[in-house]
């Protein structure tokens, strides 16, 4: 049965031009964890949202804060996260983290935040939170098309010691159990997320690195072209799923 499903999935891949209907990973969580995510006081990720709110108003050395240009984030950042990753002015694909750092370095004239640093996690989570409940909606045409195709190819390419592609699990056998875990569709509508495994909040690229290691494939760096293109593809896959950031995940 499993063989047939996998085979069907594999055969369908080359022709896959449309995004399959996928579910948010929350749908695979236990009622307790779902409740934990939904409760604003219990969800540990909210601590980073609080940090982000504070940082938003903190002035950089040259005197500007995020608020100086963007005002009240609860207004100005509504829907922003839903449109990332997106292509920036210089033709570079930017995710939320890279955009924040672009503002930092070019407009605030301050040093960029390191990937996975507390301030970057906090700001990314805070901005993503402002799109809570909004559907993911990235552009994959025009200047984004090349990146999207690269991400799509990555998702369907067999990699690593186990010779597995993302699609084989996350399309092929999503919903099945791997030990006690249920294989999700790999949707990314809840990042940055508080992962129990990490006992802290982390970025999508951290999670992607964990995925790569989990299947014994090459891990790429945070902000690498590979993961950025993949992020765009995954965001398109997650189209119409509501943003839940910060999610609670295992």
């Amino acid at each position, binding site marked *: 049965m499993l063989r047939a499903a996998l085979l069907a999935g594999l055969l369908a891949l080359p022709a896959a031009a449309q995004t399959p209907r996928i579910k948010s990973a929350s749908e695979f969580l236990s009622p307790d964890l779902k409740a934990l995510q939904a409760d604003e*006081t*219990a969800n540990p990720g*909210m*601590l980073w949202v609080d*940090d982000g709110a*504070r940082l938003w108003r*903190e002035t950089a050395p040259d005197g500007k804060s995020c608020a100086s240009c963007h005002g009240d984030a609860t207004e100005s950042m509504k829907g922003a996260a839903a449109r990332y990753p997106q292509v920036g002015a210089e033709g570079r694909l930017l995710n939320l983290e890279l955009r924040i750092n672009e503002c930092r370095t070019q407009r605030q004239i301050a040093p960029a935040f390191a990937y996975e640093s507390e*301030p970057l996690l906090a700001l990314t989570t805070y901005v993503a939170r402002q799109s809570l409940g909004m559907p993911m909606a990235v552009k994959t045409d025009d200047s984004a098309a090349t990146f999207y195709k690269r991400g799509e190819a990555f998702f369907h390419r067999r990699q690593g010691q186990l010779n597995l592609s993302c699609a084989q699990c996350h399309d092929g056998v999503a919903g099945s159990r791997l030990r006690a875990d249920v294989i999700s569709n790999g949707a990314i509508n809840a990042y940055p997320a508080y992962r129990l495994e990490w*006992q802290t909040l982390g970025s999508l690229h951290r999670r992607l690195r964990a995925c790569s290691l989990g299947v014994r494939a090459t891990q790429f760096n945070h902000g690498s072209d590979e993961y950025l293109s993949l992020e765009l593809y995954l965001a398109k896959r997650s189209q119409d799923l509501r943003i839940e950031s910060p999610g609670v995940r295992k």
Partner: protein
Amino acid sequence: MALAVARVSMPATAKKGDIIEIKALMRHVMEPGYRSDNRGQIIPRDIVKSLSVMYAGAEVFRMEMHPAIAANPYVVFSTVAVDTGELVFTWTDEKGATTVEKKPLMVTA
């Protein structure tokens, strides 16, 4: 940069005699002292030892924690609304460092 350290939620007002539910979340790694890092060195134990809540002249709740409390310790408990005043939440770690959060409660007759 000061990190957000706690989130407390409880009603802002209550009638005298009402039992109010309080939820308190504190940011802390709760390192149990059993994990080792990539080089095989044990990561030292670092946990919050207790949460004490003072209200209207007395300690109305105290929780003693051990390493088995999950990271970013979370607790739900209740207290009776007796008088308008402040609830003071004090988390103390094993080195004696404290984190304090205050929440006002307006109590109507």
